[in-house]
């Protein structure tokens, strides 16, 4: 297995219609290891979605290179192989479901790849089980909830057996319940199926659950590391219009008042623990 599975080399990009206008991506160098769970955080217009679209050759770089499992994305002959390796899930579940029966939709990817019928059956059943939608396989997608639809979209990508799944703000249009469903599915995907996950988001709490967090602003990577480290850079994040998790915010504000607390509490429990230690010292 080639490692890293995704690699960008001084990637730049500007939309052709805006020739001469400013670059959407200004030299991004990233390596994403196979089997990892990476979140990309950024404000609207930070270039995070544009970066995502480079990861399976929907957009091709204006400058620099993108490699998917060692394959150059500009190589047209490898296009299907690249898209088969990196699956993509988008924001609006309605606009990525093709068929009007759940299992038919799931079968769409493998059908395109020319997999024999009985194997498709197995792929579809397996991927619907992974996202917990097997019982709904004969339902019409438009009668399901947003979270369920998004899980079907994930299953549709999984049925192609990708090694990496890129999710471009998959929870942006969902209610809190749907968000939780999708996020749990994504985590399970990474943990039990060993699929590399790249989650594009602007929700702090979602980003906090990843193993590695990349923060983007103005087409550049401004911070990269484990979430607890990244979130300690409170000023930096604020300067690009991003908030930090409420737990970190609380500790940061306390530090401003003269305390010196560690800023690495991402869960409520961890935060409470930090405060408890502070209080029991006195």
């Amino acid at each position, binding site marked *: 297995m080639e490692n890293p599975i995704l690699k960008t080399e001084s990637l730049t990009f500007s939309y052709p219609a805006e020739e001469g206008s400013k670059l959407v991506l200004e030299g991004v160098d990233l390596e994403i290891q196979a089997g990892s769970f990476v979140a990309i955080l950024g404000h609207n217009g930070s270039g995070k979605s544009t970066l995502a679209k480079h990861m*399976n050759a*929907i957009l091709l770089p204006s400058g620099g290179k993108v490699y998917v499992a060692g394959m150059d994305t500009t190589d047209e002959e490898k296009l*299907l192989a690249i*898209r*088969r390796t990196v*699956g*993509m899930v*988008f924001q*609006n579940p*309605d*606009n*990525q*479901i*093709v*068929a*009007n*029966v759940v*299992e*038919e939709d799931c*079968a*769409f*990817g*493998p*059908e*395109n*790849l*020319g*997999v*024999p*019928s009985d194997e*498709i*059956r197995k792929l*579809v059943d397996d991927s619907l089980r992974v996202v917990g939608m097997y019982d709904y396989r004969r339902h*019409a*997608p*438009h009668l399901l909830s947003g979270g369920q639809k998004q899980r079907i979209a994930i299953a*549709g*990508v999984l049925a*192609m057996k990708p090694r990496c799944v890129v999710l471009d703000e998959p929870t942006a249009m969902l209610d809190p319940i749907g968000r939780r469903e999708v996020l749990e599915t994504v985590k399970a995907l990474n943990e039990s199926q060993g699929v590399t996950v790249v989650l594009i988001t602007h929700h702090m709490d979602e980003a906090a659950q990843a193993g590695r967090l990349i923060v983007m602003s103005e087409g550049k990577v401004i911070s990269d590391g484990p979430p607890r480290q990244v979130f300690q850079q409170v000023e930096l994040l604020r300067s690009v219009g991003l908030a930090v998790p409420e737990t970190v915010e609380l500790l940061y504000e306390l530090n401003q008042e003269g305390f010196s607390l560690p800023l690495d509490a991402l869960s409520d429990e961890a935060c409470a623990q930090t405060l408890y230690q502070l209080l029991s010292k006195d």
Partner: protein
Amino acid sequence: MALKDITLGQYFPGDTLLHRLDPRTKILLAVFYIVALFMARNALGYALLALSLIVAILISRVGFQAVFRGMKPVFFIVVFTAVLNLVYTPGAGEPLVAFWIVRIYWEGVRTAFFMVLRIMLLITCTFLLTYTTSPILLTDALETLLGPLKRLRIPVHELAMMMSIALRFIPTLIEETDKIMSAQKARGADFESGNLLQRAKALIPLLVPLFISAFRRADELAVAMECRCYHGGEGRTRMRQLRYVGRDYAALVLGLGLCIAVWALNRLGVF
């Protein structure tokens, strides 16, 4: 009126013999039936066709009520055809009824009756096809049946794909129309009063956002389909394969038999 109540395709799920037949068989049967219907020249032929359709409806268990409900929208055409045939068919003998400029002959009554019967049977037969076959199966069947036309460079796969995507998006777009309508109504738009022209004009603020969003959806869907390796019909396989079994051959033989029977009954020349 809630737009959500509109159902298209009118499929009644079920597990009867008619539901289980291969969709291609059902389309071919409908074709046979229509051919037979246009061959029929006398009461015996029509009686046989009507009887076989009634048996088919009984087998399908969709109920006569559903069939008659489907007939409602075409009621006007049926009456119109009947009246035209009644009045304009010239006859040899004495007119049955004669007043003002209207002359109704025996031949007119006969033609009108058969014409109405023909239209009604024709419609019922096609309705029965859509009642017992899910739209997606119907599309699949059309794709395979029209497969040979690919040699003539007719984009059969693309047409079938367009049809199934259209079917998939009808409920989504209806839901969206409903939403836009509510939003416009909340801002004072009036879709229900005024004359025809005013109402048509009132639809513009409904149609513009609907079209814009439909184009945006189409764009996103195209990208999503590409991401899932869609590259046209070439080298594509299907999860669900259509297969003819014994009952399909039996049904096709029966359909062919119906055509021959009607042709034979024409020779008997009753009425």
